[in-house]
């Protein structure tokens, strides 16, 4: 079979276009596709709608703000409630230069899952009675109010795993899975960065978490020691 392996992140993302919607896996320091994001910074792609759990100080995603590549973020964690240092994203958000759609984390994950799973929409109790519900369709099911939520998809997903094979099968280390697993199912083109790239057949079938058919391209990145910024 034709290998899905690319030799560099630059080549793997060469067709990402201005105005694209891109999902970015990762949760703070775990499972972040650092090299793919860096390639995107270098590529100068503009007008991006990003979908990610978080964008904050120290996140590779925040580097996209340096050259103002982001038009909008859909995220669950972006602006700190506490008054600590501001990320570049936060600065641009406060200056009205970038848009933010804040979504409860579980709703974000479930909307992405629905996008990948062919679910047309779903009802969740999360967000009822809050600003999230403003102007939104609700429905009482089994005596409890629920919000209607639509699926979320993207043109591209940039994800990170620990090991992968040339067919795109992926294995994650510890808490690396987070949004990577679901995002792999919900984008037209899925690009995976792995620390170790092996031949098909080398991964234990029972250990594979992301089946290869979800992944279009795979590229070996470096391990970046990331730190936590309290």
């Amino acid at each position, binding site marked *: 079979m034709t290998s899905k392996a690319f030799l560099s992140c630059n080549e793997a993302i060469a067709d990402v276009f201005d105005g694209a919607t891109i999902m970015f896996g990762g949760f703070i*320091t775990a*499972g972040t596709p650092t090299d793919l994001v860096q390639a995107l910074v270098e590529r100068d792609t503009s007008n991006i709608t990003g979908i990610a759990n978080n964008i904050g100080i120290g996140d590779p995603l925040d580097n996209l703000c340096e050259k103002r590549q982001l038009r909008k973020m859909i995220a669950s964690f972006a*602006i700190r409630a506490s008054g600590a240092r501001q990320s570049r994203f936060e600065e641009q958000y406060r200056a009205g230069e970038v848009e933010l759609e804040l979504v409860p984390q*579980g709703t974000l994950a479930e909307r992405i899952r629905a996008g990948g799973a062919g679910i047309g929409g779903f009802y969740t109790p*999360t967000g009822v009675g809050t600003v999230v519900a403003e102007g939104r369709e609700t429905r009482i099911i089994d005596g409890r109010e629920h919000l209607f939520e639509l699926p979320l998809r993207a043109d591209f997903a940039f994800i990170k795993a620990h090991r992968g094979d040339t067919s795109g099968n992926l294995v994650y280390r*510890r808490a690396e*899975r987070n949004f990577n697993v679901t995002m792999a199912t919900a984008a037209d083109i899925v690009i995976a960065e792995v620390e170790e790239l092996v031949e098909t057949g080398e991964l234990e079938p029972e250990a594979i978490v992301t089946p290869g058919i979800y992944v279009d391209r795979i590229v070996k990145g470096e391990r970046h020691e990331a730190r*936590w910024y309290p």
Partner: protein
Amino acid sequence: MRPAGIPRDLIAMRVARELEDGMAVNLGIGLPTQVANHVPEGLTVWFQAENGILGYGGIAPDDAFDQDLINAGGQPVTLQPGACFFDSAESFAMIRGGHIDLAILGGLQVSERGDLANWMVPERGGGSIGGAMDLAEGARRLIVAMEHTARDGSPRILRECTYPLTAPACVDRIVTDLAVIDVTPEGLVLREAAAGVSPGGVQSVTEPSLQTADDFREMTF
């Protein structure tokens, strides 16, 4: 004058007494995180981090930092025997589906009906919802751990929250540096107060009126 309260670490210790053997517990960012370091001897508690861990232990020492082993606040954690990993969709299926016995969240404001506001300070704007709304809706029991008053001394336990809500009517118990207060269908019930703090002292920094429980007693740890 505001009564003197207990230090934050003692709040965490008091909350830790709510833990029971075998419980699945999610700890919010900030003060609640410290609860993991005060699990009573002999209990096994399954701490869930919404980024995809069940069974983490305390906060890891700084030199043992593993970027792939963090809690939902980004802090490095350790693993207990029997721990496992999963993705975010599965994690919130666990939370929303009622499989978390207890969530311990930080709070900015709590109303007398148990409405919680903990994700945004309107004066500051922006805000971050994170997993709080899902936890507030999904956990079987919700304890808020917070300072009893804001920095300017104003009450955080209010008749109505003025900050944007995390979820309405979701809080079961409030543990602060001054008191343990239950949200009941009949209103707020003062169950415990810190040593040297009277029911009147707690009431003086609490907006809605508190009923004092029949078995009201001093907080112990």
